């Protein structure tokens, strides 16, 4: 590792983890410096988690509250699984950024503002009657209010940039100061700038000058700096991945492991589109992407691709997934492999497209007409996105079934350092095409998996016709026979149930496999639950964390494991869908902890909920 050598190690106490939140106008370059801090932290032997928040408008007018863009980085010397409940430091590059983000700054935390932007006009746009720098709004915080705009202009004065371009460097000035305060190495960022602006060296130089100036400012004013604890990362080649990147790579990897063409067919929608964009850039690795005219076509095209032997994958978010259900049911009936990725967002209807939620679990389980069972998986972290994409492909291909993979706006857009996989070392997905023309029957089943046999166009002698009408169990021909429908219903649900046999047994993520209280989660609540349970266990509370990756079917031992706890609490960003599912499976002592604000759980919210349960159970 290019260890963060030479980084000034400023005086001050050592802290375990730090949360820095950047906020500013959409044009301020907040996302860039946020990810640079992430990179610098990873290089400083920190684990970390990051999360961006974009405005919902494409480009809101400058200075408005709804035009504020933010980026939060949580880094430190232990495994980091959340983005942090509260910020230790808030960087607010204009008044609107201050007013919309101050509630996330912890009491006593540091706030860095660009005093140069606190003009009357900007204050008004942010809804401030008086300057918050003067009216006591910031009492109780450590306030740093240099005129960053002016200082940035000064720092790049030697270069030949115009005023506008010069001012654009102020994000790096702020970053430089942050680097000083948390002892980050500037080198990786400088390298990144040089690479990024290779074609425009003046811009690179200006940003580097601003970075250095901000850093120097910290030194000069003797801003309190902190040492951050370190970890010892496992060896490997690392990159930062967002959930959507890991998912894209997982799908492409799965297709390679199965030796099938990945046909990814989608229609743009927030927050699912980045998956399409990422895969579109992989076409030179053999991936085919298709931007369909709508979600129905996207799903149908994926089904067509699977019919012809490819790995058909489609992706969307809530409203688009609703549109896909009829076609999914076709894939259930035709028993074709298909992966449907749902990057969930807040509903109902258009809802809040840029906000996260887990409210499509029921839709995944039950959203189709008739008895249309399929497999449902969920990913809880960027790394899990990679694994679950491969697991989805394994199930879809091995069992000839559609698989819904649930992600959400939070897991898709958060990122963390990740060891790039060695594809050759991963287990292959061996599913052969049927090529034997002798007495071929498309609905002949593998006795073990109950998967039907898959013969693809191009195979002489295996020509056959399938469709969505009920099929005769024995011949695959159309059948309306009463007893046959019962048999086919049973075999379709039996096939899905049978997947459980190949799912590894569920084990608590933390804590013993039995006890009074288990916190059961799925998807992106993973981080906050994990941290909360960690904290509680550190305080000697007896509580276990169980994380479900397989939502249909469940892991084979799930019943048993959950039954070993007297009480189960299920935190979900919905109104209790998994809790209802567990109850419908016969678990009595299941309580839902629901949050529906478009934001992830805070660790403290879960801790408090657990504590109140433990107390009340002590009575």
């Amino acid at each position: 590792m290019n260890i963060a050598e030479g980084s000034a190690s400023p005086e001050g106490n050592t802290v375990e983890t730090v949360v820095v939140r950047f906020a500013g106008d959409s044009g301020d370059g907040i996302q860039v410096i946020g990810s640079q801090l992430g990179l610098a932290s990873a290089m400083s032997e920190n684990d970390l988690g990051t999360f961006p928040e974009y405005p919902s408008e494409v480009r809101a007018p400058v200075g408005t509250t709804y035009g504020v863009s933010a980026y939060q980085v949580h880094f430190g010397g232990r495994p980091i699984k959340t983005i942090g409940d509260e910020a230790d430091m808030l960087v607010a590059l204009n008044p609107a950024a201050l007013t919309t983000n101050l509630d996330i700054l912890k009491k006593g935390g540091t706030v860095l503002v660009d005093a140069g932007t606190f003009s009357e006009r900007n204050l008004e746009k942010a809804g401030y009657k008086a300057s918050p720098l003067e009216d006591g709004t910031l009492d109780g915080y450590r306030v740093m209010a240099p005129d960053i705009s002016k200082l940035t202009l000064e720092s790049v004065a030697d270069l030949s940039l115009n005023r506008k371009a010069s001012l654009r460097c102020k994000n790096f000035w702020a970053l430089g100061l942050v680097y000083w305060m948390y002892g980050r190495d500037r080198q990786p960022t400088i390298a990144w700038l040089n690479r990024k602006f290779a074609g425009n060296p003046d811009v690179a130089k200006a940003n580097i000058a601003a970075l250095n100036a901000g850093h120097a400012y910290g030194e000069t004013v003797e801003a309190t700096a902190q040492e951050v604890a370190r970890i010892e990362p496992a060896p490997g080649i690392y990159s930062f991945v967002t959930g959507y990147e890991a998912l894209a790579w997982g799908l492409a990897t799965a297709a390679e492991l199965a030796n099938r063409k990945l046909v990814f067919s989608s229609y743009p929608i927030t927050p699912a589109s980045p998956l399409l964009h990422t895969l579109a850039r992989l076409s030179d690795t053999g991936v085919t992407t298709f931007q369909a005219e709508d979600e129905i076509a996207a799903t149908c095209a994926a089904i067509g691709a699977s019919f012809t032997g490819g790995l058909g994958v489609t992706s969307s978010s809530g409203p688009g997934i609703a549109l896909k259900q009829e076609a999914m049911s076709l894939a259930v009936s035709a028993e074709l492999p298909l992966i449907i990725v749902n990057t969930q967002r807040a509903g109902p209807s258009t809802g809040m497209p840029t906000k996260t939620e887990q409210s499509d679990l029921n839709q995944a389980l039950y959203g189709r007409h008739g008895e249309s069972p399929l497999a449902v998986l969920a990913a809880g972290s960027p790394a899990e996105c990679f694994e679950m994409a491969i697991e989805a492909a394994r199930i879809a291909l091995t069992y000839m079934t559609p698989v819904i993979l649930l992600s959400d706006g939070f897991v898709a857009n958060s990122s963390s350092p990740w060891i790039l996989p060695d594809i050759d070392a991963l287990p292959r997905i061996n599913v052969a095409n049927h090529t034997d023309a002798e007495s071929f029957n498309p609905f002949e089943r593998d006795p073990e998996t109950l998967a039907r046999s898959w013969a693809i166009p191009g195979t002489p002698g295996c020509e056959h016709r399938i469709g969505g009408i009920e099929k005769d169990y024995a011949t695959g021909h159309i059948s309306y026979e009463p007893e046959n429908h019962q048999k086919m219903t049973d075999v379709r649900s039996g096939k899905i149930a049978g997947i459980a046999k190949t799912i590894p047994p569920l084990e608590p993520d933390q804590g013993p496999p039995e006890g009074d209280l288990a916190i059961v989660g799925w998807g992106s609540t993973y981080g906050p639950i994990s941290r909360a349970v960690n904290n509680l266990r550190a305080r000697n509370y007896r509580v276990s964390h169980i994380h479900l990756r397989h939502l249909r079917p469940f892991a084979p031992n799930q019943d048993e494991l959950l039954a070993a706890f007297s009480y189960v609490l299920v935190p979900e960003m919905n109104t209790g869908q998994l809790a209802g599912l567990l109850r419908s499976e016969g678990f009595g002592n299941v309580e839902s902890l629901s949050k529906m604000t478009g934001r992830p759980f805070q660790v403290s919210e879960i801790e408090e909920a657990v504590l109140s349960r433990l107390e009340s159970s002590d009575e």
Partner: protein
Amino acid sequence: MNEQVTQAKLTAADFATDQEVRWCPGCGDYAILKAVRTVLAEVGARRENTVFVSGIGCSSRFPYYIDTYGFHTIHGRAPAVATGMLLANPDLDVWIITGDGDGLSIGGNHLLHILRRNLNCQILLFNNETYGLTKGQYSPTSHLATRSPSSPGGSIDNPVDPASFALGCGARFVARGVDTQIGQLTEVLKAAYHHEGAAFVEIFQNCIVFNEDVFDGFTAKSNVAEHQLQVEPGKPLVYGADDSRGLVFDAAALGLRTAELGSDSEADVLVHDPANYNLATALARMNNPEFPMATGVLYDNPGPVYAAAADQSGSDGNARSLMDAMRAGFSWKVAGKEQ
């Protein structure tokens, strides 16, 4: 793909399946089925390389009766399923079978998009001006005032003309055939087969149960000559007994009009040029009985075909390994501890 076994040339009968054909006795679909089987044999189609894909409707039962690969999908979505097939395997010969309801009501959007993208396939729309399978409701091609279970007082929706629609969508091959005119129909289907890109063929199909003889105005034996103009590339646009009538250009109206050849002095009869879009739109829009109904290949003007292989990516076209691609972002290495 798969190892190719040496195969004798197939006959029409070789494309029949063991399934009993279940259309109503006398349905026009039978004749179309026969024509398609004949064409498959004549063009030397290979069973294993051919896929028939359909939506839902009487017409969409078609794939069950052709011994190739077949997929009877869901209502209106056959073009989308076909698109996926061609994405995964552009070498397949894909035939889409749809109806006026399947293709133009619920499925109109997919028809638009497969036509404009110009995927390499044949699209056969069986137009019987009704929803046969669901028992005879009026459809988007039903003429105004059609009485049906859902329009007992007569329909009030203006119909859409499939050929005009296809041309408006940017189709590069638009043709019309008639179920009972097997000779022309097989020629049209062969032309569609040989056209590179999406070939759209509307086939007037008699639903004897719900819409018997609705096309009689130009398809009844006694009406064909006077009310149908069977266009052929490079041939004059004439019709009528002894080809006594023809289409001429009406300069004042900037459009077509019919003329008695011989008697009409202005009668500069037009010659059919299937590559001419303006002519095709004018032919498609001719309304019977005011005009003869134009059948045959109205438009055939190949354009850029959607090729899945074509690269939409930003790369230079050279293949990369997936692991290289993953490493192409900003990555760093952590060395293991010395042991």
